[in-house]
Structure formats: C-alpha cells, structure tokens
C-alpha cells in the first residue's frame, strides 16, 4: 500500500513537472528581453564573441544607448558557448538576444533552422564599401541574413629575426617551400620552426586549411561531398607533417608569445591576436597560395569573420536593425580601428591615416579580398570534429596519412549521406 502510494506520488510529481515544462507554447518570458523597463528605457541584449571582437562593439554602444534611450546588456562568450547559446536561444518563442555575433561557418545550420531574421526585410542592406568576397555567405536567395563585422582572416605570423637569419625577409616569403625552408633552418639553429594549435579539432583543421588551399585542395567538392583523401589533400598533409615536425603544438597564447620572443619562427594566426608595429619582433603576411615558387597561386586565406545577425525571435527587431545599421556604419567602424577593430571595409583598411599607423592592414585587406569561407554546410561542426580527430591521429603517429584520411573520408561520406 505504502509502495503504491509512493509510486503514485512520484508519478504524479513527474507528470506535473512534465506538464509544467512542456505546457507553454508561447515560450519563455525572458526578462532580459523585456522590451520596456519601468522608466521607459528599452532593454536589449546582445551576444558577442569575447575578446577584442566584443571590446570594439562595447566601445560604440554608449552613443547608441543615449540616442535611442536603450540599455544594452552585452554577453561575452567563447566561440563554442556563443554557438550553443544562440542555438538554445532559438528554441524559445521569445528570444533573449536582439543581436548576435555569428561565425560564417554556422550560417548554413542557422539559416536552415530559421535562427536568423531576414535583414533585407528589416530594411538593412550591405553596401558597396564592404569587401565583396566577405559577403558571399551573407545571402540566401538574395536576402541578407548576416553582415560581416570583424575581418578575421588567417595570416602567417612570423618572427622577423628568425626569418632574416634564414636568409629571407618577411616580404620575400613567397611559397610553402620557402616557409618549410625557413622553419627547417630555424630548427637546425636550435629554435622551433612552425607552431600549430593542437588543442581542439577545430583549431587543427583551421590551421591546416590555408596549406590545403595552397595545394589546390579543399575539404568538399562543389556538391558538398567530402574530398579529404584527394591527391591534393594527401600532398598537403604530407607537407604539413614535414612542416610541423620543425616545431610543436601549442595553445594560442603560447604560439603568439613564442613567435614574438623568437623561441619559435612562425604559425598560422588571426589579426586580432597580435598588432605588429615597425619595432615589433613579429609581423604577419597573407599567404601567397603557392606550394612552390613556380606553382599556381590559389586563394589560401581562410575567413574567420565575425558577422552580425538578428535572431528571428528577437523582441526588438526594428531597434536591433537600427543597432546593426549603426554598428556597420563606415564611420563608426573606422572609429574602432584604433582599438583593434578590423572592419571588412575599404574605407577603413585603405585609409591613408590608418595605413600610416597600422601598415599591417594592407596585408589584412589583401587577405580579405582573396579569402575563402569554410564550407557552408549545416553539418560543419560534425565535419570538422571528425576530420580534426583523424588529423590528430595522423599527427601523433596513431595512423598513417593514407589510413587517417581514408577513415575520415569514409566517416564524412556517411555523415553527409545522413
């Protein structure tokens, strides 16, 4: 009898909680998304990638807040947390975020699931000042869903002294063959050559993609079918194995510190990590995209552009569109350069005053003009996790290049067929 009662009680509680959790079809009443506070000030909430990417936006917000009588709550998140938070937010009928940063590689899964609002319908259009190549993933059926905000693109960061010691200058590094030569010479003189990030599958893949592109390869074909055991991929991987043998895996902060100090010679980096000056020990270049001096040059710089979008369940879409327009304004973006902003705009990156103070923006502009987005496929997270795991096996000697890439190809074919 007692047991029956207890079981009944448990069942009752479970049913009640299930009902309570699943009963509301109107979604959560998130307080942060409350349009109006008691004093008439509108509350907005935006989710940004933490670091310099969020810092430059936060700097611009007070003027907008004052002009529009709004208070903007900024959430700064790591890349993975931002991805998860924006997706979780999409499951509520009334979203908590009014504006969010989106990595280009999330575009497909977010637009397929209707996470982002149609910016064109909200009256926002991308202007001609924005570097055209950076806008290629922003549209679906001629409607804009994203605006490229922070021009992150892979560059090759190198220690100037180590490069000169190897008989080159930063400007004369022309091909992957030169890069290997410099790193091998650095290794022979007791320094580390090439540093790569081996701490996650995403970093492993991203650091390798510029090399792969320079060999004329890519991870998928035009039909988005995996091509990770192609001849170009195998050649690029073999080259990469030779290159990373001159150095070692390090986390981002160690990579920057060791190239800057001269303990290591070079590594793939992003402009937001390091600001070179005329006196700095390190500098960066855009990869030429050539495997050897005589080889064909390909576009080899991979975009990691942080775009801005408006969640389709935002409670303040019109105001969010105004905020987006304000943040994407050429003059507002120009103003962020001094704080480390990298607008995807000619008016900022080719400005004489900017170039006089930050000459590296010429390189960034070149890289942005010829950059390549990671594949716009909704399975990209699974894709890079699988590929990165197999690359990790290859790099650490658990599998040969052929074994690892064939296994990756088989797993990715299965993934794309689902």
């Amino acid at each position: 009898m007692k047991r029956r009662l207890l079981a009944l009680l448990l069942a009752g509680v479970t049913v009640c909680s299930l009902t309570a959790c699943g009963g509301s079809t109107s979604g959560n009443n998130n307080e942060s998304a409350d349009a109006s506070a008691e004093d008439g000030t509108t509350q907005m909430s935006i989710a940004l990638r933490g670091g310099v990417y969020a810092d430059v936006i936060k700097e611009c917000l007070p003027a907008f807040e004052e002009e529009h009588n709004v208070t903007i709550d900024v959430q700064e998140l790591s890349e993975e947390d931002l991805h998860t938070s924006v997706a979780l937010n999409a499951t509520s009928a009334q979203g908590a975020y009014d504006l969010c940063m989106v990595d280009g590689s999330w575009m497909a899964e977010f637009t397929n699931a209707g996470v982002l609002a149609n910016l064109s319908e909200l009256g926002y259009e991308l202007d001609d000042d924005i570097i055209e190549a950076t806008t290629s993933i922003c549209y679906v059926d001629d409607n804009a869903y994203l605006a490229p905000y922070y021009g992150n693109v892979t560059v090759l960061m190198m220690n100037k002294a180590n490069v000169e010691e190897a008989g080159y200058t930063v400007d004369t590094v022309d091909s992957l063959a030169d890069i290997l030569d410099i790193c091998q010479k650095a290794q022979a003189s007791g320094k580390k050559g090439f540093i790569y990030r081996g701490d996650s599958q995403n970093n492993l893949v991203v650091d390798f993609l510029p090399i792969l592109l320079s060999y004329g390869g890519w991870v998928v074909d035009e039909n988005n079918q995996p091509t990770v055991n192609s001849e170009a991929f195998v050649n690029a991987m073999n080259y990469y194995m030779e290159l990373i043998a001159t150095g070692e895996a390090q986390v981002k902060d160690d990579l920057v510190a060791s190239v800057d100090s001269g303990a290591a010679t070079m590594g793939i980096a992003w402009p937001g990590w390091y600001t070179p000056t005329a006196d700095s020990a390190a500098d960066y270049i855009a990869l030429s995209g050539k495997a050897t001096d005589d080889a064909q040059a390909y576009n080899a710089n991979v975009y990691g552009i942080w775009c801005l979008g408006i969640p389709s369940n935002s409670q303040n879409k019109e105001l969010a569109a105004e905020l987006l327009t304000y943040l994407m304004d050429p003059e507002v973006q120009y103003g962020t350069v001094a704080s480390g902003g990298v607008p995807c705009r000619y008016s900022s990156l080719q400005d004489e005053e900017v170039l006089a103070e930050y000459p590296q923006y010429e390189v960034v502009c070149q890289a942005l003009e010829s950059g390549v987005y990671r594949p716009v496929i909704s399975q990209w997270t699974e894709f890079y996790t699988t590929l990165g795991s197999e690359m990790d096996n290859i790099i650490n000697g658990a599998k040969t290049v052929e074994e690892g890439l064939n296994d990756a190809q088989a797993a990715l074919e299965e993934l794309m067929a689902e």
Partner: protein
Amino acid sequence: MMGRKKAKGAELQTKRFSAAMITPTVIILAVMTAYPLIFTLVYSFTDYNLLGALNSAPEVVGVKNYLDLLTDSYFQQSVWNTVKFTLLTVILEMVIGFALALFVNSLRKGQKIMRTLLLLPYLLPTVTVALIWRMMLSPNYGIVNQVLEAWHLPVYNWFSDIHTAFGMLVLIDVWQCAPFVFLLLYAALQSVPQDQYEAARMDGAGSLKILFYVTIPNIKSSLALCALLRTIDSFRLFDKVNLLTGGGPANSTATITQYLYNYGIKTFDFGLGSAGAIVMTVIVLLLSSLYIKRAIK
C-alpha cells in the same frame, strides 16, 4: 485497551510526521532527477537534434544511437580512458589522502595549520587549477620546463605529447582531489577510540599491525564512502580535459564526457548525447552498486 489505542495513534502520528518530512525531498528528487533521467532515456531512442527539431519533430530511431556509440572506436577509447583514469586517480588519491591523514593525525602540534594548507588545492575552482597547471607546464614559459632545462633534463610539451598528456591529467586531479580524501579520512581517524590503540600497544603490536588491525577496520566505512565518491567524481571528469587537452592528442585523454560534448552537445545531436549519458550512468551505477547495496542493507 485504551493504552494500546493510544500507542497505535502515536505510532501513526510519527509515521505521518516522517512522511511529511521526506515528501519535499521526494518531490525535489523526482523533479530534479527522475524527470531529466526519463527525458534523457526517451531522447536516447530518437534522432533529436536541437536545431533540427525547430523544423521537424524528432523521430524514434530505436537503438540506433546505442549501436552507433558502442561501435564507434572513439567512444570505445573514451570509455577505456575514463576507466583507466578513474582507477589510477582513485587508487593514488586514496593512498596519498590516507597517508596524509595518518601523518597529520599523528602530529602533536600544528594539526590545524597542516589541515588548512593541505586543503588549499581542493578549495580552488577547477578552472583556476587548470590555468595554474597550464602556465606551470607551458612549453614556452612554464617553470617546470625551465627547472628541467636548468638541470639538463629532457623537457616535454606536456599537454600535446601523446606520452605525457594523460599522465599530466592524472597528476593534476590527484593534486587537487587527494586533499578531499585526506579531509574525510582525517575526520574518521579522529573518531577511532584511543583505548584500542593503547590496548594494541600493550599487547606489543607494531605500527603496521595497529594500522591494519585497529585503524583500518575502524574507518573502513569512511574509506568505502571516499572511494565511492571519488570514483563517481573521477568518472565524470570533463572540465580539466576540456580546458587542457580537449581530448587530444590523438584521443589519448578523451573521456566519456568529453566525447559526449564533442559529438553530442557541440553538434546539438542530443539523441546521441542522451544515449551516451545513459551508458555512462549505467557504468557508474555498476561501479558504485557494491557500495549502494551495502548502504541499503
């Protein structure tokens, strides 16, 4: 007759009172434990994807998620890594924690200071612990490599070298969690009756005999509880792995939770993630069943 009736009434009242007292706990447990567990179990038989579910309802796929998991070599390696990690850390933490507890318990002076100092690593948040060790073991500016270099000893890229990464995670976990074992066993040692020690000494027992025939039998419940708690905690290891190695190099440090994060949570594939969570729960239940069985008895 009246007396028996009164006694029965009092008994009933006590039972009602007991039931009233445990009801809130039962309700909270049901909501916080039973509900998520039931939902996780249900999801584990579906292809539920967080973003996919915005367009179409999840479909039942039977045991596909379980088959996918159990035939995945990465998952198998993660299970093996987790078991290996749990065994190593629990054994080391129990031995070191017990040794520390015996040592501090034997001190005539300074027990309080030692107790506080030894507890410090356990009081630190795991993120802080991970960052401290990352800095100390940095191949670039870490103090460990600098000291090794000064002694002309080989240096390592500790978290990126397939031969050292797993060992470093074990070392860090033992460093942080041995104090927990110390604390529990130290408290247990305080409650061992002193007259048993005196009697043993009078009978001519040596230190080892006292340890095995007096100390350990008196604190065996605490030892078992400690081992159980550490086993469960070690089995759920995630934060240190995620912060320091991400499961690499070559999957050598991937635990079940890290696998679930990479292939279930990060990809929003909650169906697969739920199946993994159920498998993990079953393994932890099996591991801890002996203790639970004993506790129920």
